[in-house]
């Protein structure tokens, strides 16, 4: 009962919030509702017993990602209302509705099967964090490390793309080459 109420509450709220994210003309509203929706999603995780995941969701999304977005928003000076040309609403909502319909039908199918054995079963007695830790650092150690590399890549990318060095472009600058030539001549 408690679970049901929570589920429906979270469902309605997330859907509404994400709708706002998607439909709002104001970046601020959109972002705020996105953040709120993400918080609520962590609620789902908690209901589902994925406590650690819920925490990560809160920290990474609501903490890191949203902070990034807000900094970006400030940089872009996008607090005012955004004018967007709307792409054929019929097409957009048709496609959205269609995909919702098909996905819902798909998920309404009897996917769940008793026969399926968990390969990495949970151990409720030990707690979610421990479970996750063990699997993550054994089975999924490699993806974990690769994710680290990925984050490194993202970091480097973020740094160099946003860096000052990008303000001048050698790509279209003919004089750069002349300098090289001069240097070579000097040698």
């Amino acid at each position, binding site marked *: 009962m408690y679970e049901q109420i929570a589920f429906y509450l979270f469902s309605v709220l997330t859907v509404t919030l994400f709708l706002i994210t998607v439909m709002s003309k104001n970046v601020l509203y959109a972002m705020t509702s996105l953040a709120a929706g993400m918080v609520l999603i962590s609620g789902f995780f908690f209901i589902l017993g994925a406590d650690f995941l819920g925490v990560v969701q809160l920290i990474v999304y609501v903490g890191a990602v949203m902070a990034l977005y807000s900094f970006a928003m400030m940089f872009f000076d996008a607090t005012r209302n955004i004018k967007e040309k709307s*792409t054929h609403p019929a*097409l*957009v909502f048709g*496609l959205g509705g*269609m*995909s919702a319909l*098909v*996905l819902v*039908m*798909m998920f309404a199918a009897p996917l769940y099967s008793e026969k399926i054995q968990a390969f990495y079963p949970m151990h409720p007695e030990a707690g979610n964090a421990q479970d996750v830790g063990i699997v993550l650092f054994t089975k999924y150690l490699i993806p974990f490390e690769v994710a680290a590399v990925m984050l490194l890549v993202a970091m480097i990318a973020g740094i160099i793309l946003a860096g000052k060095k990008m303000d001048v472009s050698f790509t279209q600058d003919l004089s750069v080459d002349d300098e090289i030539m001069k240097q070579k001549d000097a040698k």
Partner: protein
Amino acid sequence: MESLVYIALFAPFVSSLFAALFGMSPRKTFVGAIASLLLFVSLSASMMLAYHVYQTGESVHITMMDWIHMGDLYIPFGFNVDQVSVTMMNVVTLVSTVVHIYSIGYMDHDKSFNRFFSYLSAFVFSMMVLVMSDNFAGLFIGWEGVGVCSWLLIGFWYHKPDLTREENPSISPSWAANEAFIMNRIADLGMLIGLFIIYWNVGSLQYDAVFAAIPHLTDVILSTAAIALFIGAMGKSAQFPLHTWLTDAMEGPTPVSALIHAATMVTAGVFLVIRVHPLFSVTPEVSYFIAALGTFVAFFAASMALVNRDLKRIIAFSTLSQLGYMFAAAGLGAYWIALFHLAAHAFFKALLFLGAGNVMHAMHDELDIFKMGGLKKSMKATYIYMGLASLALAGIPPLAGFFSKDAIIETAFNEGTLILWVMLVVTAGMTAFYSFRQVFLTFEGDERYKEFGIHPHEMYKFVLVAMSPLAILAVIAGFFRESFNAFVTHLLPGYEMSEHTHHLALILGAIVFAFAVGGILLAYKKYAKGLKRSEKVENSFIYRLLANQYYIPNLYEEFISKPYAMISEMMWKGVDLKIVDTTVDGIAKFLYRSGDGTRKMQTGNLSNYLNWMAIGGVLLLVVAMISAMIG
């Protein structure tokens, strides 16, 4: 004997090559002389061969080398000198020798003198191949060879421009040459088909093999083969409906007309029928058709000759008519008579043409007999020659024509084909009339040429001398009828008149004679005193019909040439460019245009790209759903 065969065959070839060496140089008389000499060599060899064949009664057969050997088809270059071919060889070489010598005089002023001899000798060579070959393929070589030489020689004065049909009925020499070649080609196709039929049913194209196989073949095969071969003969011998080229061929120099279009090449068709007599003699329907067609052409051509004003065309029509006679004889089974008439005709017709050539030479190439008259003063020898030849042609005894033509008419009677007989007899009368109409209009009466400021003069002496053998033969050839009969019937089936005919021979002869003399007299009455033209007659339907050759050339032009050109144009512009090519280009253009169309999906707008992606994904999902639901 083999070397004689080679000499007879290749002397003209050497002559042609020799003359060709000088083909592009200015006139050199010695070219003509050497060519004539070589032709004379060929004539001598032919005569010696004739003597040999006559003596031994055996034919000389040689196989020079292989020509085509593929699959089962084996064709050698083989030559066979037997009674028939040796006759032809003699006729051909004799007339050509005379014509060669004649041409030295006639072509005197022509800048292409050397070239002319080259062509002329080449023609003789082809003709020799034609008559001497021992197989159908060799015959066909000669057959086509003479066709090409004829094309070259008709178009000899190729530089003349095209005129309208009113100005010149044959438009231009080059036009006439092409016409002749193409018409012959039509017939040649028939001949080729004949060869194919024979090959696939006999397995060989050698005469002896084919003749030996004839008894084993069915009637249908024999008849189709005979018809196909005869179609070939029709083209070369200008039988209706492929006859129009012959009169147009008169655009060529006159010696050419004498040699090719009177004495030799046009008789190749008759020769073919005689050569292949074992085939024709077992296909009576085809033979009868040949006879009937021959008779018809004899009459038909003679009718056109009645009103023609062109000196050479009249002779050409008369050639046509005489060819009809020959076919009539051959068709009726009297092969030796046909061959005899062929030989006799060659002599007097060549003589006639050469005489006409003299006249032309004198008249500066004027050919309209209405513009001549009274030439006998300046050209006595020619008058005699032409008169003799015309008499022979008209069948006045004791000249050659009488013996040969009379025999044909008699044959028609003998075979009981009275209609043919009647037509032939009437034609004989017409022949006499138009021959003498021409002779009288040319040589007798008022001197109409003076209006045109022409000063006629007689031909060179040596030319006249050279013509004399023909004249002599035209006179005396008839007397050799029986020995000729005996000679050739070694090979050809004999033909004897029935008792009944034999009894009536005199009466029949008298009837023909009466017609002939009647014709001459009529001509004399009308034309000997000079030309009296009658508007009424000339405007009459029949006159115009005859003068325009029954409008057949016009018909051909309107219903064959022009539509062909039109359809060709349509095929090109309408079908080839508009349909076939446009389809091909259309496919290419369609692809290109659809490229222009589809590249529009690449708007450059990210939102659209995302839409496409979503459309793709969602569409696939929908398809997945539907197909999962269907099962």
